[in-house]
């Protein structure tokens, strides 16, 4: 029997915007897949690129980093820094031929419940098409 592949997506969300947006999606009873495992951080710029790398190498099928829209950061400029920290990891992935499509950055504000649900749905579909993260079967990492 073929078991349908349900991805596990580590979603690291900033508490002021994206996490609140996810909350709003919930309280608005919008449907989004159970593949999203949400984690709250104070600011998306707090996330060391190595933590995203760790999620990926530990077998997360997708890694989603969510922050406030540029210009709307609670700490004024945190997400501009996020953008650069994320870019360096993407550049490292691309340079090493790793699947950088498994890393996603998204700007979702506290009022954008529908957008959160949409990103969660779309990204889950995208990851489903990519299949399982191959690192899950690697002994020598």
């Amino acid at each position: 029997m073929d078991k349908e592949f349900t991805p596990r997506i580590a979603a690291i969300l900033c508490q002021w915007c994206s996490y609140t947006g996810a909350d709003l999606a919930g309280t608005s009873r919008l449907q989004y897949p159970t593949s999203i495992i949400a984690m709250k951080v104070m600011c998306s710029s707090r996330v060391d690129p190595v933590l995203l790398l760790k999620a990926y190498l530990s077998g997360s099928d997708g890694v989603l980093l969510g922050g406030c829209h540029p210009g709307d950061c609670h700490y004024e400029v945190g997400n501009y820094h996020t953008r650069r920290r994320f870019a360096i990891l993407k550049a490292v992935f691309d340079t090493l031929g790793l699947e950088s499509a498994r890393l996603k950055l998204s700007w979702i504000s506290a009022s954008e419940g529908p957008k959160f649900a949409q990103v969660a749905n779309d990204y889950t579909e995208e990851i489903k098409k990519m299949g399982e993260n191959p690192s899950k079967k690697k002994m020598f990492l």
Partner: protein
Amino acid sequence: MQGASLKAVDGIKGVIRDFLRKALESEAADAVLVPVRTPAKDSYAWILTNDPALLDEAGPLAPTMPVQGAKALKSLTRKGQGTARVIAVMRPCEVRAAVELSKLNQVHLDNIILLSYDCIGAVPLQDYVGEPAGSEERFDSMLEARKTEESAVKPVCGICVDFSLVDSDIHLGLIGLAGESALLIPNSEKGGALLEAMGIACEEDISGWMQAVSGLKAEREDKRSKALAETGASLQGFDGLHAAFADCVGCHNCQSACPICYCRQCYFDSEVARRDPAALLDTAIARGGIAFPGDRVMFHTGRMAHMSLSCVSCGQCSDACPVSIPVADIFSYMADLTQATFEYAAGRDDGEPLPLRQYREDEVEKVHEIVKGAEEEEVAHE
């Protein structure tokens, strides 16, 4: 730009010794930081001294680099600039590392006069320690010819493009100059003031030297891009990474030898980076097995994300590797690409801010390209 031509009596090393002695005697500087051959004559150590007599022992152009000069400088200035004016004689890659460390507030350059020179490369530490006398001889003959012999130096030295004038205060030009002569070139206000205080007039034309340097640079650029593309091709995907780091013993020597890795507690040595023993068996069952030491790819890839933007390709990591992994080639390959992404070059200019310490609302092209996904959504949403 102009320089002062110096004639050597006792080879190129003599030129620098002479210059340092004069700087100390004329009290233009309080002390010097130079590599000195160890008493057993099988290695070099950084010595901080104000004794002109000790300089006879100094090999200001050391054939090998057991410790990156920027690290020595960090020990001296980690708590601030101090009051002593110190001349530090360093390779261009050491100067670039010092510039990066000063941006990271680990080194203070205010009272330091960085003296760089046209570098012909460094002998790998293992080779030097194994055969000190032979290595000295080979290095001296390279120095005399002012030409790098690729088989004698570290692989990253053979493809180094920043072997000459960098962001130092005074530079000693050697390449393309005849016989025993050298060019002393002031490269900052501080450097100019020091030469003036010593009564050295810089009125000579340096265009011949500049031409020789840029010719060699063009040649090296070509060589570098070819060599690093080859390194990159072998590094692709999990299989490539595994093959590259399969022999890694997890000693983290590459990290402790690295001048840029300055954190007192590295994430990869911390408790949170260690796997939970209770979960290891589950992971092993899910993966079919798990290797120890674990997380080697995570360590190296993570280090690339952490420090490749400041990597100066000095090759200390390869020197420190007990199992001869070409760490420096791999990191240089990564550094060239990540630094290009941010339109940055490590150590090029101490006025250029670190890419991760600044941002632009309207990002540089390649960064914008990378995060475009998120930005486009925003446009669609509005």
